[in-house]
């Protein structure tokens, strides 16, 4: 029987701190890569101000249910632009000198295996959107972006993300984004 979705009252979002390290061993997601990031790299990334990691923690058990790590990034546009079969309606984006469009990137998003399907990742994405709006009061960036594996595309589409462009043949991920201020 599927477990119930998490209510906001059952969880907390905590910014990663060294005191969380003893909780890492109980966090096992489907991805070895995301598990090793949490154990080996997340705290260092934060210490050097390269990324920020936020944990969704179940209040009752003090378990890490899910985590998200956020990075600052940028879309670097080509000087040459091929617009065949497409129409550019939004004039500001057709400015030729515009080369970089800043964004906040969801670098990693992982959920404990036993808690999949309970809405934990959705809560963290909603929190990232809320934070992105708050940061935008001080520093502007129009997008929240993510590099998604093909099988995760429907998940992000349900959250309102769009595929940014057709990836190159060798790429394993699709870059997706949601505009924060449409």
């Amino acid at each position, binding site marked *: 029987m599927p477990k119930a979705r998490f209510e*906001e009252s059952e969880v*907390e*979002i*905590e*910014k990663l701190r060294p005191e969380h390290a003893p909780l890492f061993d109980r966090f096992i997601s489907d991805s070895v*890569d995301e598990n*090793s*990031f949490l154990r*080996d*790299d997340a705290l260092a990334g934060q210490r050097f101000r390269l*990324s920020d990691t*936020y944990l969704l923690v179940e209040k009752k058990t003090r378990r890490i249910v899910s985590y998200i790590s956020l*990075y600052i*990034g*940028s*879309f*670097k*546009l*080509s000087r*040459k*632009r*091929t*617009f*065949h079969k*497409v*129409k*550019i*309606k*939004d004039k500001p*984006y*057709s400015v030729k000198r515009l080369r970089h469009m800043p964004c906040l*990137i969801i*670098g*990693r998003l992982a959920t404990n295996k036993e808690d999949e399907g309970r809405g934990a990742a*959705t*809560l963290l*994405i*909603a*929190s990232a*959107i*809320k*934070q992105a*709006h708050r940061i935008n009061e001080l520093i502007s960036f129009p997008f929240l*972006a993510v*590099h998604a594996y093909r099988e995760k595309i429907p998940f992000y*589409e*349900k*959250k*309102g*993300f*769009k*595929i*940014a*462009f*057709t990836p*190159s043949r060798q790429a394993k991920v699709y*870059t997706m984004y*949601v*505009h924060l201020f*449409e």
Partner: protein
Amino acid sequence: MAREIKTLISLNAKQTGEFLASLSNNKNAKNRARMFAMAKKMRLNVL
């Protein structure tokens, strides 16, 4: 070591065209509206 995260997303000419065009399409607009409403209502703050 965990995989590297690409923070500079370099687009070629065709990809730039596709990306700029995607800015004006309404794909997943309903889902986006639902998600943003959820974010707005959310009471969870970062501790």
